[in-house]
């Protein structure tokens, strides 16, 4: 895993991202974004015996019920319907883009090697990208042509290796498996493989980084040759999201038992097989002709070059040595367009939230008024204009990607920022009328540029903030041990909205770096975790967001925009910098 965290700003070293946060970072947390938000209604709507809500999207991104190939109508409230095939592009869209052609090799790149190839351990994004093409889960998110990263459909779980699931009761879920699925080694997928994989992910060892997502699970068993039963210890609103998360992958039991782990081999059920891999150089994937979705994938294969350096990535894209570049900032785009005027660019919002975290165990940040004063001094529009070249929007509390669950900026407390008078008054009340000096630890890849603008803005209220530039590993240690007063960092979203809020702000949470949160918030989060009624749950999380906005544990930065660029012959590409959604590239085809 090539962590580029060096302080050098040389063009060769800089992990040149449009914002401080690199794609890899965002991705590697297992960012599942708004997924949970959108699935929860499904679960909630179906007390007993539910089925998956099957939807496809129109181009506008709105959802509409889709006819399934097996004739079942995929209504979320159906009692035991039959979900059909996973939704793909609607016919009208495919016509617009031309009929997919088979064949060709896509040339693509990753900034670094995955640490190893085991599907159940790491959440590193480079690993997720590759394995997303080679494995399947029981469910997957409905990303595909027309369902871009910000669409609700893209955050909706659809069948993958499971054709349907039932919740027998609040604590019991039964998944029915697709028939006739084969692993890359030719063996059949069985319920045993599924149960074994899910249990392996739950292994209580730090190597298994996703184990925490299944803490409420009591047992996973293969109850019949083609069904798997999951029993919970307590109601768990986020279970389906975690199952649909791309890293909940199904691997063959016999291979793991034979080899001990899957660090060196890829044996999945996915659209592509690993043909060869030279570490640090390239990975070659080839089409899995036995893939269970008929007629896909379209590509013969994918050549993935390992390219750590940004300028060589850009050069390779400009010279057609690679077909996709992601993500680009606006100045890179200008150059790209000069060289290749016909590139196709998609703009989208990244999934994270950047901000300055306050250490509440350090004076003066134990005083909520001081934190509020800092918030009032932040002019998000200025950050958008200066750092994001105008491409961005205001946001607070949770990333905008939890579509449907996010309280609009204007409706949150203290949305009248910037307000220097109020900020000064708050500081005076707290006893810091003359301001104070403080250091803000930062690292190049996480919102350092935003923090630099913030430091200028804080001067207006007499706060003298010095930005301390750190090496990545040292930064992580400082952040994880709470060795900071202020810290400029990035918050990556996790599957469910509860996952994001609880992981960062729960008083005992593993990602609560600055002693954030309090008993009030804990009580709310606990309620949200157990509440299966979607409207009530939304109301709870609205309160959570208001509390976050008001107590200012983290001073939020605005949301920026990123751009993905592809050459015009690449069709069916979907912008998504979160491979955790399992973007398998099965839908990409080449028109040349």
């Amino acid at each position, binding site marked *: *895993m*090539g*962590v*580029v*965290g*060096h302080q050098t700003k*040389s*063009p*060769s*070293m800089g992990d040149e991202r449009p914002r401080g946060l690199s794609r890899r970072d965002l991705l*590697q*947390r297992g960012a599942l974004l708004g997924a949970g938000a959108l699935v929860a209604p499904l679960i909630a709507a179906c007390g007993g015996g539910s089925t998956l809500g099957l939807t496809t999207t129109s181009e506008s991104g709105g959802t509409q019920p889709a006819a399934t190939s097996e004739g079942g109508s995929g209504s979320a409230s159906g009692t035991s319907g039959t979900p059909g095939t996973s939704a793909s592009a609607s016919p009208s869209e495919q016509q617009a883009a031309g009929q997919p052609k088979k064949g060709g090799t896509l*040339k693509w*790149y990753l900034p670094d*090697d995955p*640490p*190893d190839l085991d599907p159940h351990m790491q959440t590193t994004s480079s690993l997720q990208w590759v394995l997303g093409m080679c494995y399947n889960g029981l469910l997957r998110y409905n990303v595909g042509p027309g369902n871009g990263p910000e669409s609700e459909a893209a955050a909706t779980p659809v069948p993958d290796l499971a054709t349907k699931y039932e919740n027998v009761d609040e604590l019991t879920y039964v998944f029915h498996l697709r028939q006739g699925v084969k692993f890359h080694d030719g063996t059949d997928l069985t319920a045993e493989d599924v149960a074994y994989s899910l249990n392996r992910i739950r292994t209580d*060892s*730090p*190597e298994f*980084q996703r184990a925490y997502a299944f803490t409420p699970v009591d047992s996973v068993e293969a109850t019949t040759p083609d069904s798997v039963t999951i029993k919970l210890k307590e109601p768990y609103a986020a279970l389906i999201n975690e199952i649909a998360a791309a890293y909940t992958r199904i691997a063959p039991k016999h291979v793991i038992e034979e080899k001990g782990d899957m*660090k060196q081999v890829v044996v999945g059920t996915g659209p592509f097989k690993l043909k060869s891999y*030279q*570490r*640090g*150089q*390239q990975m070659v994937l080839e089409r899995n002709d036995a893939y269970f979705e008929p007629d896909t994938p379209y590509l013969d294969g994918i*050549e993935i*070059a*390992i390219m*750590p*350096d940004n*300028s*060589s990535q*850009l*050069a*390779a894209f*400009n*010279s*057609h*040595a*690679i077909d996709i570049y992601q993500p680009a900032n606006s100045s890179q785009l200008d150059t790209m367009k*000069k*060289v*290749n005027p016909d590139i196709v660019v998609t703009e989208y919002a990244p999934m994270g939230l950047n901000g300055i975290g306050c250490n509440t165990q350090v004076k003066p940040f134990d005083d909520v008024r001081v934190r509020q004063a800092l918030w009032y001094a932040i002019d998000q529009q200025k950050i958008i204009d200066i750092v994001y070249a105008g491409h961005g929007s205001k946001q607070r509390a949770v990333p905008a990607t939890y579509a449907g669950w996010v309280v609009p900026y204007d409706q949150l407390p203290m949305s009248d920022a910037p307000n220097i008078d109020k900020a000064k008054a708050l500081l005076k009340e707290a006893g810091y009328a003359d301001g104070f000096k403080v250091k803000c630890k930062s690292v190049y890849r996480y919102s350092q540029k935003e923090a630099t603008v913030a430091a200028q803005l804080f001067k207006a209220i007499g706060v003298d903030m010095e930005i301390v530039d750190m090496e*990545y*590993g*040292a*930064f*992580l*240690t*400082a*952040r*994880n041990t*709470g060795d900071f007063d202020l810290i400029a960092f990035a918050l*990556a979203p996790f599957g469910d909205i509860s996952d994001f809020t609880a992981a960062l702000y729960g008083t005992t949470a*593993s*990602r*609560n*770096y600055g002693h954030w949160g309090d008993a009030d918030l804990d009580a709310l989060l606990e309620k949200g975790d157990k509440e299966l009624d979607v409207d009530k749950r939304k109301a709870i999380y609205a309160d959570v967001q208001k509390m976050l906005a008001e107590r200012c544990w983290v001073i939020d930065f605005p949301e920026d925009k990123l751009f993905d660029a592809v050459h015009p012959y690449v069709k069916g590409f979907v912008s998504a910098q979160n491979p955790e959604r399992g973007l398998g590239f099965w839908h990409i085809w080449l028109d040349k």
Partner: protein
Amino acid sequence: MRTYVLRRITLIIPTIFLVSIVVFALIRAIPGDVVTLMLQDSKDPQQAEQLRQQLGLDKPVVIQYGIWLEHAVQGDLGTSLWTKNSVAGEISRALPVTLELAIISMLIASLLAIPFGLISALMQNRFPDYLVRVISITGLSIPNFWLGTLLIMLPAIWFRWSPPTTYVSIFADPVQNLKQFMLPSLSLGYGFSAITMRLMRSETLEVMRQDYIRTAQAKGLASRALVMRHILRNALIPVITVMGAQARLFLGGAVLIEQIFLLPGLGRLTLWAIQVRDYPQLQANILIIVIITLLLNLLTDLSYGWLDPRVRLA
């Protein structure tokens, strides 16, 4: 002579031993350890403790060093903490890439530096001299990674050409291989030639002022023989010292160039090992770099004898 070489080689062993201790301690003293990097966002101390145990990092550093040393003397440099691959295997893949880069760069540097430096001196204060001096000053001033970035960006913008994205061994496909090594060797070699060019020039001027040159001229030696036999050979002695001393820079100094030009060499491997705190890999890489540096120093010293009979006699 033989005893001298043997003595030098024997001296390498304690040096390596000392370096291994220093490196072992230093890489563990950098803030931010491997466990933090592996766990990334989780600050759970229990998980960290468990992982530290799994990796064998919970033992006292002295014990860890002892274990490492015990394996190292048996030729086992350990496995990478991240990839679990053999550390020696990773090096055996990376080293040839760096060596090839170093050799081609040295070649480019020598081909540029020696003739141009010589011409510059022979035609002192005339146009070719000025030109060579401008070229060498430019080479000295431009950082090689910046030159590398330009060399990769500009052809892509102007001609939509970029070097191959995947490394191919010179034995598998020499053309593809040279296509990939051309630009990085040029960016490294140019900067390197600049120093050597200037040195070559000043040394030649120095030699030309010597009495024996005047004597040689006086006895009517042809200018070609004068230059080749008397001037060049004597001027080269310090130049070779400097080149030898600088050759080791290719091992560490190629880090950025390998990164930019996607060469899976030792520099890139070392940078990665530092960034993710892969202690066994880093330890082994530095040891290899130290060994090569010591051998290079030895070779440089030996080459004096060959070039300069005065040293040979002493």
